[in-house]
């Protein structure tokens, strides 16, 4: 059982790292400001979620795990607000999103 939790934890941590990196790659590869936000979204949700889940599995049934759960909760509550604020600020300052038809 112990080995199983250990393996699951490491799987979560490694997968989380992969998604964080993919988010970073997305930030670099995607063409314009608005689409780059989506790349950051991958890091914010599944990347952070898997890393924290992996850490929670390492922590076991302790207070640390409860605190990690709260960190994840606050992260998932605040990151969309920040993302929305950035996107809205960009739109209000007149940045036009690149759309598929114009790009083609």
């Amino acid at each position: 059982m112990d080995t199983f939790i250990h393996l699951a934890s490491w799987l979560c941590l490694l997968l989380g790292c992969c998604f964080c990196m993919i988010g970073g790659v997305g930030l670099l590869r995607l063409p314009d400001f608005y689409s780059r936000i989506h790349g950051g979204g991958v890091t914010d949700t599944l990347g952070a979620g898997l890393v924290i889940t992996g850490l929670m599995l390492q922590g076991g049934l302790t207070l640390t795990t409860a605190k990690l759960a709260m960190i994840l909760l606050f992260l998932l509550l605040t990151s969309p607000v920040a993302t929305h604020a950035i996107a809205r600020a960009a739109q209000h300052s007149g940045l036009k999103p690149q759309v598929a038809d114009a790009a083609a």
Partner: protein
Amino acid sequence: MQTSSLRRTLSLFILLFLTWLVWSGFYTSLLLGLGGLSCLFVVLLSRRMDIIDPEGHPNHLFFGLLTYIPWLAWETIKANIDISWRIIQPSLPIAPRVIRIKTSQKTHLGQVIYANSITLTPGTVSVEVEEGEITVHALTNEAADELLEGSMDRRVTRLEGER
């Protein structure tokens, strides 16, 4: 009206005290007493400021959220895998578009939950939130179509309706 307000005050106190228990980790009578007093003080202040209302402390959503959060988590995971796959493909198969979607929520709280759920799901970001309408930037046609289909909208409206 009076009972729901009392219930909301009580549940805020319980929530604050649970937070104290998780944060502190010391369970001696002195620290528990001090924690209880601080929670009581915060609750009294919030009552005076009149912010213990369905928007400030939405305890009526609790049971609805128990089913909504797992659903949203699953949707988010699916969208994450889709967007990640698109990012690492050399051809970068994306088709950004901007869409406007109608919202059917009756309260501002419901609309905020909807807009945040849209942003939390990779592939869609809510850019502008207005009365009854949200402007969304979508990275792919599929993500845009899924929003236009409106299953998330209906779920948030149902969640908000449970009182």
